[in-house]
């Protein structure tokens, strides 16, 4: 198996912990992994992305070549579009529907949704709303991860194991909240 994944969002939204969970699932299967991150100035509310590459075979480049990403997973709708040149023609685009508006000229939301739904394989998930429904706004990224999971190439149990590992030091409550959020995303059906 080989998956090239672009994780996108705005600095501070928590894409690194998403990458860490997928990375754990890959390491548990003895896969190779490379994950490049953004540190420094861009973290201050700017656009950020992480390249996550997992494979059964050794990986050379830390960066994904244009047109070869299997998935774009984005915690923000406009940010999902910024990396379209990297997506392969049959790749999945999974985006959170809730915008992060910290610029004065944020584009019209419907135009953004229109661009996203033009992609052949897409999931546009109202993760912020779903998180509010269960009264836990901290798990938005876990809901988006759940929605991505069917396309990551891991079994559901493998993903749940990685989540348990990731949060085990924070206690059973935190583990269960994150699993609950993951399930909501996993069971989300696009209209």
């Amino acid at each position, binding site marked *: 198996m080989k998956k090239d994944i672009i994780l996108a969002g*705005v*600095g501070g939204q928590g894409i690194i912990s998403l990458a860490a969970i997928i*990375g754990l699932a890959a*390491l548990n299967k003895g896969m*190779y*992994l*490379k*994950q*490049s*991150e*953004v*540190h*420094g*100035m*861009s*973290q*201050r*509310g*700017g*656009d950020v992305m992480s*390249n996550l590459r997992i494979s059964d075979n050794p*990986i*050379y*480049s*830390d*960066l*994904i*070549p*244009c*047109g*070869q*990403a299997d998935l774009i997973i984005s915690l923000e709708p*406009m*940010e999902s*579009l*910024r990396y*379209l*040149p*990297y*997506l*392969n*023609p049959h*790749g999945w685009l999974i985006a959170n529907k809730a915008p992060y508006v*910290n*610029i*004065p*000229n*944020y*584009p*019209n939301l419907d*135009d*953004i949704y229109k*661009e996203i739904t033009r*992609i052949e394989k897409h999931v546009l998930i109202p993760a912020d709303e779903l998180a509010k429904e269960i009264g836990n706004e901290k798990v938005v990224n876990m809901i988006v991860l759940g929605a991505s999971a069917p396309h990551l190439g891991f079994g559901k149990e493998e993903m749940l194991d990685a989540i348990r590992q990731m949060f085990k030091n924070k206690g059973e409550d935190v583990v269960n909240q994150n699993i609950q959020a993951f399930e909501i995303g996993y069971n989300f059906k696009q209209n």
Partner: protein
Amino acid sequence: MNKLLLLGDEAIAQAAIDAGLSGIYAYPGTPSTEIPEYVHASKQAKELNIVASWCANEKTAMEAAIGMSYAGKRAMVTMKHVGLNVAADGFINASITGANGGLIVVAADDPSMHSSQNEQDSRFYGYFAMIPVFEPANQQEAYDMVHYAFDLSEKYGLPTLIRITTRLAHSRSGVIRKEQVRPQNSLKLPEDLRQFVLLPVIARRNYKKLLSLQDKLEFEAENSGYNQYIEGTNHSLGIITCGIAYNYLMENYPNGCPYPILKIGQHPIPKKMVKKLYDSCHEILVIEEGYPLIEDHLKGMLNLGKPVHGRLDGTLPRDGELNPTLVAKALGLPATMGLPIPNIVTPRPPVLCKGCPHNDTYLALNEALKNYSKGRVFSDIGCYTLGALPPLESINTCVDMGASITMAKGAADAGLTPAIAVIGDSTFTHSGITGLVDCVVHNSNVKIFILDNFTTAMTGGQPSSAYNRLVDICKGVGVPEEHIRVLKPLPKNHEENVKAIQEELAYNGVSVIIPQRECIVTLNKRMREKFKKQTV
């Protein structure tokens, strides 16, 4: 075998700990910060009593490392590429003194300027100093090279330079550790106690020794295994790669590259290996992250030999970092490409955080300067540089660490009075104090804002050497006490702060205004930790 998942930065740090490091010195700077941070947080390093120090600037860090090497122990000093400019005096002269205990300098370059003012290539500094330079291609090599670089440093009594770039620094991969952790050196002074005395008579002798070692260093580069000649079947092209450029090449040839490759990871340039490639191939392509150092050497001034392609002839872009797609194009391979970015996608530049004290300071400064002509605010390097962007547009310059104060002085001398300087607390102790001395000595009409948020914020909240010392430092340097004004930048204090600033603007002389409030990011982090402790 137990693999650790490490950033390139962390691989260097773990390797140093495992290789018998006694001390690491640094001023934080992207993309190098995670090297010392890892050692600071390492339980193993604590148990081994390894000294980990945040220093006032890269020069003081460099000199502390040279001092530890003098005392016979292994030392590492880390910095971003522009930090090596600050440390250059000590760095270049350390190649003349030589090392005693193993000494490694790590410079992390930032091609494409993700978080920097330029994309200078630190390998040139290595050649300038005439010491071995390492360019790891991946996290494992970074780990392994640290051990070898310490060995080489002690074998020849020279400092060594490890040069990495952003992508390796900030990318994670599995790293296999060496099974044995080496013991630290014991205290042992140089056999010749005048080795580090660079009086001309001694420096001339040391310099001749450095020159005489060059052939040996090249021999090491030919034989260490970090420069590899990989034979190919198609000799129409020979390829030289440096550091991580090798990965981008091989990404394009998953089943093996048809052309012979010279993979370079250690300098000085292994000339015999280069000649072998040059003689056996019709044309040469040089792929290097950074400036065209090897390409330029190979071409020579007149470019009379075989065709040499790379950044200089446009086969690869002249600036910016490389990636697999650019390398595919350079090789004439069909590059894959997704869809274009839709036009509605707008840039999202970084911004000051919500609740950031700098925001309140700038709002007050903007209002206080309302009646003055624009273009008189000289600033510096830190989060507050974002004050150049809309909506604040408060500052007019950002050149190098500390330049706000000294540039304001020069502009004031030219008649632009009052000239304003805006500098962070950590940047002030890094390189601002000496500029303040100049201003006081000449009684320049400058208004210096030291934005005191109690931390080095931009790089993630490392301790600031200025903490609790700013007023005393300014008094000690000779700023009149009544013109050192400490403000609290909060929206509710806006009117009061504007008034204080205006009073200082009206004074003809040196004023220091210190808006003082904790960085909102470190404050939130502190509160979270406090809450966690209370609930446990």
